[in-house]
């Protein structure tokens, strides 16, 4: 399974996540910082809702006419001297990329961060034929050095590691002998990776958005590694999910503006780079050969279905940064390279219910994800839709019962999740509580509270109450 990471069962992964207090602390503070930054960036912009509406409008139109825009894109890439390969599957994409590497006798590949190359397992495919693939994004570099640890967040892949752990990795694998000051470690990585950039035969990147009208691949980055990957090696390969496309440069503006604000709260990242074909006759740097690989890998199955809007995703991770479930279990618990709410929607679609059937239940349906999404994907509704589909597919017992039991089984078979859930309930519900009752509840509670009040969750769980009572009894005796 391409999107799959690790072999452990969902509940085991969840328990591991909940027990990892270090990771949970890191996730909590990252969520808070990123969440705040996103909100202030949105506020600064003024009419954020208008921007979201425009984002949604652009994504819908593009997806409805995806064949047209992909045809235009590929024509334009060819006109600007590039090659285009349409890959229906991960295997086809990897085979093509391997062929390019073999033809160019490429030994060293420098790579910028790209979710789709993770998804298709490209690094392994290249290493099988003897290529050395060097991850150059700071976080990915650290993960790769640490015996190929998996990313736990799509924007900050090394979110689960603290600086001491990172120092240890650098020390053990690269003989680093300075402190755990982030600046010092980054300077070390800069120096190490400069040599790789200068020696590389091939540069590989993803693609944030391709621009159909001009055949341009855009990259939205902060560190400068993607620019180095595309300025120095003689051969460049860009890999894109087939939905990552905009009609013209004018729409690129809107989606890049939404992406930067939603992902990291910046107006623009340090670098937004638009690359069109091969270098010109009078350019001294840039690639002599350019390949664009457009990947389907299950995406087209979403077209024409109720899940089509999941293809509107621009990979900003705003939904992940507000999700209360992600906050508790962390990225690895999802068992997919796409974690959080969007991961819980996408992973079952790309990888199937057998492997990812639990994920749509890893949600409180609080709808914070839907509110945060810059292109207005109704994420929590898509999660409910998944649950309904699964029940329909199983065709057993009544819908409500299956749903309730599945949710309960998930919580109850994981003692820690159960504990976290019952402890979190009063806090989560406090936003909706007036006195002792809930008058207007979120998500699944709403149909109930529309006609009657719901008792507010007790501040004490049954277990806490029972323990206290037992303790008291002990004192009495």
């Amino acid at each position, binding site marked *: 399974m391409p999107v799959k990471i690790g072999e452990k069962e969902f509940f085991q992964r969840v328990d591991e996540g909940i027990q990892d207090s270090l990771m949970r602390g890191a996730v909590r503070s990252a969520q808070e910082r990123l969440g705040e930054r996103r909100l202030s960036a949105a506020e600064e912009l003024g009419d954020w809702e208008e921007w979201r509406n425009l984002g949604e409008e652009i994504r819908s139109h593009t997806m409805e006419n995806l064949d047209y825009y992909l045809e235009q894109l590929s024509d334009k890439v060819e006109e600007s001297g590039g090659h285009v390969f349409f890959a229906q599957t991960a295997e086809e994409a990897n085979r093509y990329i391997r062929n390019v590497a073999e033809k160019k006798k490429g030994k060293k590949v420098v790579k910028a961060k790209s979710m789709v190359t993770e998804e298709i397992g490209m690094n392994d495919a290249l290493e099988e034929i003897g290529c050395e693939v060097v991850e150059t*994004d700071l976080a990915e570099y650290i993960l790769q050095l640490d015996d190929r640890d998996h990313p736990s967040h799509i924007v900050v892949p090394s979110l689960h590691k603290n600086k001491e752990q990172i120092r240890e990795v650098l020390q053990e694998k690269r003989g680093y002998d300075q402190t755990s000051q982030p600046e010092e470690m980054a300077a070390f990585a800069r120096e190490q990776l400069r040599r790789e950039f200068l020696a590389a035969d091939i540069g590989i990147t993803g693609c944030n958005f391709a621009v159909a009208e001009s055949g341009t691949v855009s990259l939205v980055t902060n560190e400068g590694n993607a620019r180095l990957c595309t300025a120095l090696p003689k051969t460049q390969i860009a890999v894109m999910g087939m939905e990552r496309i905009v009609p013209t440069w004018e729409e690129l503006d809107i989606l890049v503006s939404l992406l930067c604000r939603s992902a990291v709260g910046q107006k623009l990242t340090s670098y937004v780079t638009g690359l069109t074909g091969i270098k010109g006759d009078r350019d001294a*740097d840039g690639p002599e050969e350019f390949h664009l690989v457009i990947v389907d890998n299950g995406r087209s199955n979403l077209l024409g279905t109720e899940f089509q809007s999941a293809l509107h995703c621009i990979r900003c991770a705003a939904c992940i940064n507000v999700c209360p479930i992600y906050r508790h279990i962390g990225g690895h618990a999802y068992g997919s390279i796409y974690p959080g709410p969007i991961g819980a929607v996408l992973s079952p679609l790309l990888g199937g219910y057998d492997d990812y059937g639990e994920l749509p239940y890893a949600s409180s349906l609080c709808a914070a994800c839907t509110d945060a999404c810059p292109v207005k994907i109704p994420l929590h509704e898509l999660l409910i839709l998944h649950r309904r589909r699964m029940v329909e597919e199983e065709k057993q017992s009544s819908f409500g019962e299956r749903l309730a039991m599945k949710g309960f089984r998930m919580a109850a078979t994981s003692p820690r999740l159960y504990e976290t859930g019952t402890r979190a309930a009063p806090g989560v519900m406090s936003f909706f509580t007036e006195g002792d009752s809930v008058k207007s509840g979120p998500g699944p509670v709403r149909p109930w509270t529309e006609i009657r009040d719901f008792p507010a969750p007790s501040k004490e769980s049954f277990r806490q109450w029972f323990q206290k009572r037992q303790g008291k009894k002990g004192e009495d005796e």
Partner: protein
Amino acid sequence: MSIHNRDSFLDQVAEKLGRERRRTGVMRPRWRHTPQWKVFEGDDRDDLSDRLKEQCGRIHTQLKRSTAERLPRVMDETIRTFGRSVVIGDDPRFQEYGLDEYFQQSREKGELDVHVWDPARDEENIRFAEKADVGITFSDITLAESGTVVLFSDNGKGRSISLLPRTYIAILPKSTIVPRMSQATREIHQRVERGEAIPSCINFISGPSNSADIEMNLIVGVHGPVQAAYILVEDR
């Protein structure tokens, strides 16, 4: 043939969308929402310069102002704080603003080691830029909102000039300032519509490189330049 598997792939897309393949006749709609044009609407160049200055403070970039006459002196002061080996683009604006002469003199006096990007000598450019203290380019379009310089990196204006040296200095003629990215992308879009070729690389650069990958602490200076400075200059 350099496009592979296109028809089978796009036929499937059309089939899933439940219709015939669309090869012509798709019109980009007139979008119902247009919030981008309201940003800094009605601001003149002075207002935009102030906004730019404010934003530069947020992106760890110092902004100096200069008249065209004083530019060589301001440039000299700026470079000296960062080092002595300099790579510059082969761009007629260096001559227009009298900087050619300044670099020539500094080189003769042995004060600076200056390399002018020469498309005919590709490897040599990169070797020099990689070791250089400072890379200098003119901004083609300047975005007030995000503190961005837009570079049409082609011909004598190599990609590496603003990328490989430790420090990047951009000269921003005041006439290049626009409110935000929308004005720049519209200009590029119009070029494409007129059938003109666009540069193989267009960079939108906002300050020095950075990362927050280690415990979400902002690190300024990772793979690209570690420092950045802008000089906003009154047009000649």
